[in-house]
């Protein structure tokens, strides 16, 4: 039981390049989330999904797109990376129960030059 895994662990992009971050969970959770973590700002929700084939915007969705084609996977895409997207990205998942714990992946550190 690996929990929540993220790939890659670290990536350097040039401004304007695109990339996809992959999140996978093996806990059969309905909900999945993408956050970004910046110093002093805690974690901010980018997009989330309440089930396979559904996605919704969070607090800071601009510049990102997501897809949830399979229940266990949640992809975060950057179509044209900007230096402001330099951050640590965390994926999380949770069961369909009110108050349920969110389980986090180890994070992806992204540097946009």
């Amino acid at each position: 039981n690996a929990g929540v895994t993220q790939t890659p662990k670290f990536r350097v992009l040039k401004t304007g390049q695109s990339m996809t971050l992959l999140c996978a969970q093996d806990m059969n959770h309905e909900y999945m989330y993408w956050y970004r973590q910046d110093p002093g700002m805690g974690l901010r929700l980018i997009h989330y999904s309440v089930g396979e084939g559904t996605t919704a915007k969070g607090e800071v969705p601009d510049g990102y797109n997501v897809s949830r084609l399979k229940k266990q996977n949640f992809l975060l895409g950057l179509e044209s990376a900007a230096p402001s997207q330099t951050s640590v990205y965390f994926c999380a998942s949770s069961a369909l129960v009110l108050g349920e714990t969110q389980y986090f992946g180890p994070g992806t550190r992204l540097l946009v030059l």
Partner: protein
Amino acid sequence: AQSVTQLDSQVPVFEEAPVELRCNYSSSVSVYLFWYVQYPNQGLQLLLKYLSGSTLVESINGFEAEFNKSQTSFHLRKPSVHISDTAEYFCAVRRKAAGNKLTFGGGTRVLVKP
């Protein structure tokens, strides 16, 4: 919308001393409350949570937090810290009635000194 304020960005503390991390929230509706811990170079892990019932909740490693509805606070305490408690701690809230989205505070970095 709700918001979470963690008043201290950094808290240095000596080993075996007590520590308190402050968390205040604002919300127009009832919320669930959480404390997460992030050890260096790792993801976040749940430390404890308040859903209902007793306002004092405890973790397995000696932390406790008390929900104070009148002061809209959920402060985290430990009577005696260890070096291994060095980490960043995040307070988070979630509205009871809608979805499962968390709103996080800015985090408090705890550095335990020998």
